[in-house]
């Protein structure tokens, strides 16, 4: 569609991916307009700390901005907060907003992310102080509920990273925390039994009650608190309930627009959707990872920022290929877990424990001789060396790797 004006790149979603993409567009030389839209009214903020330091921080510092407030204007990024995009009209190259406005685009970027999955538990509607944990508003809600004068019994539904990080943070605040996990172990979907056992013990040591095999069947709400029911008949009194049982990808806009959608919005190596003028980045995308040669959807800051950068380069017409090695982290109590790579499909895991005080170990996942991934606990060195071996593809001597008397250095692990 020809315009008289400068071209517009319109970005839907102002979290890690969308914000990163907007600023990168300027760095890459985009001279047209940039409009960045999000329904969240807060100045765009870091999401990972929400379940960690934001919960435990002093009042008033419950989120940490991604960029300074004035940086958007400085880079001529038209940041529109508190508005939602309701549909995309590809015929006319415009989006409709919930305030009735139409905005034209030349390039559209969907950074729509995901939303917490809230199962339709019976009694949930009447229950008080039930929160997911995805936004600054959720954090503010949890903090406010806990600061009230009544009890501090918290039930966390779901023993994934969000649930466990929240449990650790609320424990730090003095709450009495019970985690109810449906599977037979926590973190069942995302890591190995060894790692699950480590984190279960870590939480037990800090006084968090972790119960597995617990399927929540409903809520009953009394005058002061809620009762969480489980299918096995157990009941748990809760002043605050946090639900962390996973997410739903926000693919509705893409689907409505008729774009190709699978487990997420399908994009190519340049983050382009099935429409050449529409890109998608971050948690919402389903993309091919060339290193692991499979399609993935990743929920991570790394994926958000790297894919945002690739899309920005592609939008200004540069050659851009997304082939980053995925990485993740989780902070719980004084434990830092760092993960590099994707361990799915491994046939052997090598555990390496370092001598010394406190937990410090790493698990190295192999398929044949190929290193797929490393989980490093309080061991940034293992994380970094693992990253380098995954990058280079150099074979590793697994006997030396497992031997903690052999110092962890790349040269010592070569075969």
């Amino acid at each position, binding site marked *: 569609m020809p315009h008289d004006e400068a071209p517009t790149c319109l970005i839907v979603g102002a979290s890690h991916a969308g914000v990163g993409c907007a600023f990168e567009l300027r760095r890459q030389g985009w001279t047209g307009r940039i409009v960045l839209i999000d329904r969240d009214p807060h100045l765009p903020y870091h999401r990972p700390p929400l379940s960690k330091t934001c919960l435990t921080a002093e009042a008033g510092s419950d989120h940490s901005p991604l*960029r300074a407030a004035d*940086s958007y204007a*400085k880079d001529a990024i038209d940041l529109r907060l508190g508005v939602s995009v309701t549909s995309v009209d590809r015929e006319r190259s415009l989006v409709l907003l919930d305030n009735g406005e139409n905005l034209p685009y030349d390039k559209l970027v969907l950074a729509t992310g995901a939303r917490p999955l809230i199962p339709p538990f019976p009694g949930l509607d009447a229950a008080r102080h039930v929160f997911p944990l995805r936004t600054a508003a959720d954090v503010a809600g949890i903090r406010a509920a806990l600061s009230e004068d009544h009890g501090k019994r918290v039930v966390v539904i779901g023993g994934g990273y969000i649930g466990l990080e929240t449990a650790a943070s609320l424990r730090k605040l003095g709450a009495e925390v019970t985690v109810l996990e449906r599977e037979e172990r926590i973190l069942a979907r995302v890591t190995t039994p060894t790692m699950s056992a480590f984190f279960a013990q870590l939480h037990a040591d800090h006084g968090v009650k972790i119960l597995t095999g617990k399927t929540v069947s409903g809520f009953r709400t009394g005058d002061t608190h809620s009762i969480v029911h489980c299918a096995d008949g157990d009941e748990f009194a809760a002043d605050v309930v946090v639900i962390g049982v996973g997410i739903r990808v926000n693919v509705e806009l893409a689907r409505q627009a008729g774009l190709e959608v699978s487990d997420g919005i399908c994009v190519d190596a340049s983050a382009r959707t099935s429409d050449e003028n529409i890109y998608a980045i971050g948690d919402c995308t389903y993309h091919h990872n060339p290193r692991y040669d499979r399609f993935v959807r990743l929920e991570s800051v790394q994926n958000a*920022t790297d894919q945002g950068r690739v899309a920005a380069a592609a939008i200004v017409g540069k050659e851009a290929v997304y082939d980053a090695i995925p990485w993740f982290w989780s902070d719980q109590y004084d434990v830092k877990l760092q993960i590099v790579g994707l361990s799915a499909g491994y046939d052997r895991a090598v555990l390496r424990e370092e001598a010394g005080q406190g937990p410090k170990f790493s698990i190295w996942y192999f398929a044949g001789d190929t290193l797929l991934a490393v989980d490093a606990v309080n061991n*940034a060195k293992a*994380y970094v060396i693992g*990253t380098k071996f995954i990058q280079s593809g150099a074979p590793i001597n697994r006997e030396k790797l497992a031997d903690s008397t052999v110092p962890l250095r790349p040269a010592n692990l070569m075969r």
Partner: protein
Amino acid sequence: MANITFITTDGASTTVSGNSGSVMELARDHNIEGILGNCGGVCSCATCHVHVAPDDMRKTGEASEIERDMLELDDNADEYSRLCCQIVVSDAIDGVVFRVAE
């Protein structure tokens, strides 16, 4: 209150002042190009890499073990490298000059 100078990769020098938070946050709040702080300041991403002016190392102190390990991800790291999310802004670092890493 500490006055802190950042020299970006284009050679531009910016002096700003602060009295709390981390150097990464100070850089973000003043839109210093090249300091991203993608992980939010928990020493997990190595995108806030700076080189401390050699004479200023005694003020900032040296990198911690985890910081040194994470800096290994960056080929440009040297003995004056720090991840500036790990440096607290206080009077102790008044006058320090940081060069933003490539």
